[in-house]
């Protein structure tokens, strides 16, 4: 029996010739990641276990990005724990404010995560790195502590669902729409405990930014990991960033899949996920009048340069509705600088948007755009659970950056075509 890309990466990291779904293995991790929410608990566990040093100071990565720059005294204390731990253990990859970006955009950009890696991160969106052809899964703080000490972690080899995408993408349809549509079809636990393997001719042409967005939201279908086959586009992205060797794995032709689904993407229009589940999706043409108070463009899902360019194409020459606050958050300092140099900031500021430094802030109702009671937001983030962006009686709608930008102008949820934008 052949193996899937996920099984091959797990097998190699467990020092085995082969593995099969359901098997419990101990695997070596290439990167162990934590942030200002999860690492404080991991550090506490690390100390409680009497550990003296991390397994490899190059491979333990700490990124304070959620409530940073510190939103309040309590957050400041949490970040201080990370900073002091990073100094004490001489961690190579600790990112202070100024160098800090949203972790899942930052690590690939810095070449810290590479194809074929096994990554354990104490953040559920760690699955983002599957876009590079890595096995990458979110874990909790205690798991992170264990990985920090031993450089290993136990995993149950997941079954794999193969998702095949074919056909030509419509105008204003991107990776975000493909993954929202997919979650809408299979549900928020449609891939529970499983690997989602994204393949097909559409995927072959999908830019890295779109792949990151899709892998990022695999967790929203309950998946353990989302994964893409590395190809020329991956090579181009990694080349010049990688400072160590990497490996391209590919699924065997006779690999076993628990399920195979296919999608004709030419039938998929821009998607909007209604409150309060990412699976509660509708095509933009089926959205009736939904007025909004806020639009957020950013996050580990859609805060990359391509996303900002898409938003700028829509916003150019327009002014946002006086009823809407538009918050744009470039995900990393490099994205911030490039967007600025390309003149995107002028377009955003002319439109009436505010530009924030990199932070996860509003996505999880932390700060930098918290919603009041009864308010509605459209957001390019990944979750629209009850109270996700603030008051328990506020609503979040999820979309791609073009829809979020157009909605900010319209004052209600709508697409760029309504502004006469043909793509």
């Amino acid at each position: 029996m052949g193996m899937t890309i996920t099984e091959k990466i797990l097998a190699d990291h467990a020092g085995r010739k082969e593995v099969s779904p359901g098997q419990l293995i101990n695997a070596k991790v290439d990167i162990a990641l934590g942030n200002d929410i999860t690492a404080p608990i991991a550090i506490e566990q690390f100390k409680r276990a009497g550990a003296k040093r991390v397994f490899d100071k190059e491979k333990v990565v700490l990124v304070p990005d959620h409530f940073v720059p510190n939103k309040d005294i309590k957050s400041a204390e949490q970040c201080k724990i990370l900073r002091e731990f990073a100094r004490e253990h001489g961690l190579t990859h600790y990112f202070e404010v100024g160098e800090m970006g949203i972790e899942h955009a930052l690590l690939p950009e810095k070449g810290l995560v590479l194809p074929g890696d096994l990554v354990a991160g104490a953040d559920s969106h760690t699955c983002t790195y599957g876009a590079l052809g890595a096995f990458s899964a979110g874990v909790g703080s205690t798991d992170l502590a264990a990985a920090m000490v031993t450089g290993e972690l136990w995993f149950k080899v997941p079954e794999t669902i193969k998702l095949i995408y074919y056909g030509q993408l419509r105008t204003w349809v991107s990776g975000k729409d493909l993954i929202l549509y997919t979650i809408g079809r299979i549900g928020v636990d449609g891939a529970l405990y499983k690997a989602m393997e994204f393949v097909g001719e559409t995927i072959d042409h999908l830019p890295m930014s779109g792949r990151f967005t899709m892998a990022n939201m695999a967790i929203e279908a309950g998946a353990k990991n989302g994964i893409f086959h590395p190809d020329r586009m991956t090579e181009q992205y990694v080349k010049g960033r990688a400072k160590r060797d990497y490996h391209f794995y590919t699924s065997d032709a006779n690999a076993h899949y628990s399920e195979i689904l296919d999608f004709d993407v030419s039938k998929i229009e821009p998607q909007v996920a209604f409150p309060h589940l990412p699976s509660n999706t509708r095509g933009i043409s089926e959205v009736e009048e939904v007025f909004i108070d806020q639009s957020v463009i950013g996050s580990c899902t859609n805060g990359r340069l391509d996303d900002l360019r898409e938003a700028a194409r829509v916003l150019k020459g327009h002014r946002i509705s006086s009823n809407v606050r538009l918050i744009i958050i470039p995900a990393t300092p490099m994205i911030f600088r490039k967007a600025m140099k390309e003149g995107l900031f002028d377009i955003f500021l002319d439109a009436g948007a505010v530009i924030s430094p990199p932070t996860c802030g509003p996505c999880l109702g932390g700060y930098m755009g918290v919603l009041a009671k009864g308010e509605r937001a459209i957001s390019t983030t990944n979750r629209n659970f009850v109270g996700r962006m603030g008051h328990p009686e506020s609503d979040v709608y999820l979309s791609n950056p073009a829809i979020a930008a157009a909605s900010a102008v319209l004052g209600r949820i709508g697409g760029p075509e309504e502004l006469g934008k043909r793509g």
Partner: protein
Amino acid sequence: MKLKGKAWKFGPNIDTDAIIPARYLNVTDPEELAQHCMEDESPRFGREVKDGDMIVAETNFGCGSSREHAPIAIKAKGVSCVIAKSFARIFYRNAFNMGLPIVESDEAVDGIQGGHELDVDLDKGEIRNRPTGKTYKVSPIPAFMQEIIDDGGLMEHIARRRS
């Protein structure tokens, strides 16, 4: 281990933002987290839950974020056990690592209503519903995870293996 307590019934897809809203993630103190457990989902739960009570939920309990604050808050609230049809995978790992007992059973969830008094025998893998007299078998815990529990948690398990 034998547990007993009253059932608190919840629906499907109870996410980690419902278990512990992100606005409280600037702290890690279990007692402080417990004060806000299920705050937006069920204010009554926060006020009335008693030590030993159990959460009984439909599918995909604990979906969403990786925050270990979720099982920490539930445990510190005094909840002795979570029974669900299925758990989100990160929550599942976290619960074991934190020593919060969790069991999966479709039949038990269907047969239990809020307020029912329950007995859970983790060693035998049984849930007994006192008012209905029904007994349900739960899916067995993988032997490997039982070892983690027996050692008292993941970090203790690692310490033992390395010594």
